[in-house]
């Protein structure tokens, strides 16, 4: 059950925040001089004085929540508004999970053990900033051997009534041994003003745990979004994370995965569709630290207008990680001459018995295929929509959440129509 938010902050948290702030001040905002931020210019964020988002005047009703498939997907729902948990819109009854507010983490040894442990190690200033400033955060524990079939849907809503507010959503998911669960994190924005969401998700998967994680990013088109996913996997665990990115003006989504036990499997899939002046950047790092692990990455992007995309996929294979099997693929479809994509695989391999493959493609709509469809009576615009949709279809095929496929498909079709009109 959700617990009330505590009034004063306990020592463990103040300490975390203090360390994080020191960390952030040392590192500062990333700049384009950092190799990892070469193509993503954060000055639109770093030069502004952001303030912590306030509770908006506008009331949020459950029907206002417009993230794709929110209605159709049967899930345990937890709703956040401008960084605050809204208990009356959230529903976690009948779940076999332990769920709580991170601000009350002192009551749970798992939180004390795992919170901010992964963010600390990587010198990530924005993740540190999140630790320093997060408001209500959520902690989800899937106990050992618990199989939770119903997804947990966390919806982070921003209603931006004032200019340059920021929120720092924070999620900690701990999956016990042999457990199984699905978590969806959706980010949606309303209101007129620009805002910034800076989110951190930490996942700890114990031996043989199976976790499906989805991030759906539909921020307001004026919004900035930076998001960091950290995954720590133990022996034989299996974690899949999908990033579906459609909204926002400037978006950065990172995933850091550590395969820390033998026989782990990790899948990172991504789908981004952007137009106008949107900028979307995915950086992934998968560290194979132990033998016999498998990782799979499949990212597809569709870019229209003057939009820009970035994909950087780093695979690190440590010396002990023999029999590593790592596959990475990034394919991009450019619908306009002014759209731009920078894609780069990065391999650091210190073991000798490994299979690592990577591929990146950038292309346009196949005019032969357009003609083929037209020659059968299908309108030119419909042919283009169909081919654009087909380009990303295999990402949607991989989504394993009942009821989600159809609304997403519809949204993508609408997106393609809109892209053509532009």
């Amino acid at each position: 059950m959700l617990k009330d938010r505590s009034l004063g902050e306990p020592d463990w948290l103040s300490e975390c925040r203090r360390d994080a702030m020191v960390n952030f001040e040392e590192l500062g905002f990333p700049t384009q001089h950092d190799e990892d931020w070469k193509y993503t210019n954060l000055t639109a964020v770093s030069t502004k004085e952001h303030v912590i988002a306030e509770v908006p005047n506008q009331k949020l009703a459950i029907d206002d929540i417009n993230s794709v498939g929110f209605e159709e997907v049967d899930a345990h729902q937890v709703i956040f508004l401008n960084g605050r948990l809204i208990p009356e819109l959230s529903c976690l009854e009948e779940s076999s999970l332990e769920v709580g507010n991170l601000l009350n983490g002192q009551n749970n040894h798992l939180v004390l053990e795992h919170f901010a442990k992964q963010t600390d190690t990587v010198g990530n200033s924005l993740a540190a900033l999140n630790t320093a400033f997060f408001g209500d955060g959520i902690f989800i524990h899937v106990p050992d051997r618990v199989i939770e079939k119903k997804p947990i849907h966390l919806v982070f809503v921003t209603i931006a009534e004032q200019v340059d507010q920021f929120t720092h959503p924070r999620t900690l998911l701990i999956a016990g041994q042999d457990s199984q669960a699905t978590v969806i994190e959706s980010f949606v924005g309303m209101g007129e003003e620009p805002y910034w969401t800076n989110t951190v998700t930490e996942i700890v998967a114990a031996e043989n745990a199976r976790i499906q994680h989805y991030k759906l990013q539909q921020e307001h088109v004026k919004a900035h979004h930076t998001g960091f996913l950290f995954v720590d996997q133990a022996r034989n665990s299996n974690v899949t994370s999908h990033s579906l990115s459609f909204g926002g003006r400037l978006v950065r989504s990172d995933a850091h995965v550590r395969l820390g036990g033998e026989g782990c499997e990790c899948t990172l899939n991504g789908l981004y569709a952007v137009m106008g002046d949107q900028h979307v950047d995915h950086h992934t790092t998968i560290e194979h630290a132990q033998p016999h692990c498998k990782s799979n990455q499949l990212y597809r992007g569709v870019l229209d207008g003057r939009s820009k995309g970035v994909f950087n996929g780093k695979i690190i294979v440590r010396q002990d990680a023999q029999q590593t099997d790592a596959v990475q693929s990034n394919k991009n479809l450019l619908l306009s001459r002014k759209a731009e994509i920078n894609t780069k695989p990065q391999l650091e391999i210190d073991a000798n018995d490994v299979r690592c493959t990577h591929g990146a493609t950038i292309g346009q709509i196949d005019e032969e295929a357009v003609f083929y469809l037209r020659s059968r009576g299908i309108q030119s615009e419909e042919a283009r929509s169909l081919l654009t949709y087909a380009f990303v279809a295999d990402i949607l095929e991989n989504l394993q959440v009942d009821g989600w496929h159809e609304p997403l498909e519809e949204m993508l079709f609408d997106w393609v129509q809109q892209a053509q009109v532009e």
Partner: protein
Amino acid sequence: MLEVRNLSVRADGKDILNGINLSIHRGEVHAIMGPNGSGKSTLAQVLAGREGYEITDGEVAYEGENLFDLDPEERAQAGIFLAFQYPVEIPGVSNLYFLRAALNAIRKTKGQDPMDAIDFLELAKKKMANLEMDSTMIERSVNAGFSGGEKKRNEIFQMSILEPKLAILDETDSGLDIDALKLVSHGVNKLRDPDRAMVVVTHYQRLLNYIVPDFVHVLAGGHIVKSGDKNLALELEEKGYGWIEEAEPTK
């Protein structure tokens, strides 16, 4: 049904067709034969509306209308079908979705209601059985990973669903073994109809043993150099294209 008058076509700065005249009526099957580079495929492509060709002279009337006023999809909706020499692979789009969308687009122009998925599947399965196609093929992506023979059969399958008035078969026989050729020809012959015209473009006489044409035209250097009945194809097989090229009238 189709009147081609003095059609001249240029592509990439080269004259490919130089004054083609052809008159096709409903119920007729015309074979267009010719050596490589003679312009046969260009003729088929131009009739279907592929871009990249410049019409330098002449005109084509289809059912009394100027064909060049119609977009490729409008031609398809008006009953023209091109069986591609190289059918395009479209990963991510299922045959089922694609073909139902096509059929319903054509039905719409005829003022008919769209066919629902269940009725369509039933129709598709029946037609596939005629062509001895594996019924799982309907769920697969259009031509993706199909063998050459499967692709050609898929073209004829599409034709059998869309039931065109004018079917243009562009080298449907090339690359087929004899069993596949018989199947495809059988499928085509089932579609012969007093109301339907066919243009069979081929390099080889072999196909015409199975799809027996009413007329044979031989194309060389962008001209029709000889027209006749099915016996012309046999003569050509015997004497080779050299015979025709030698006989080519100087322009």
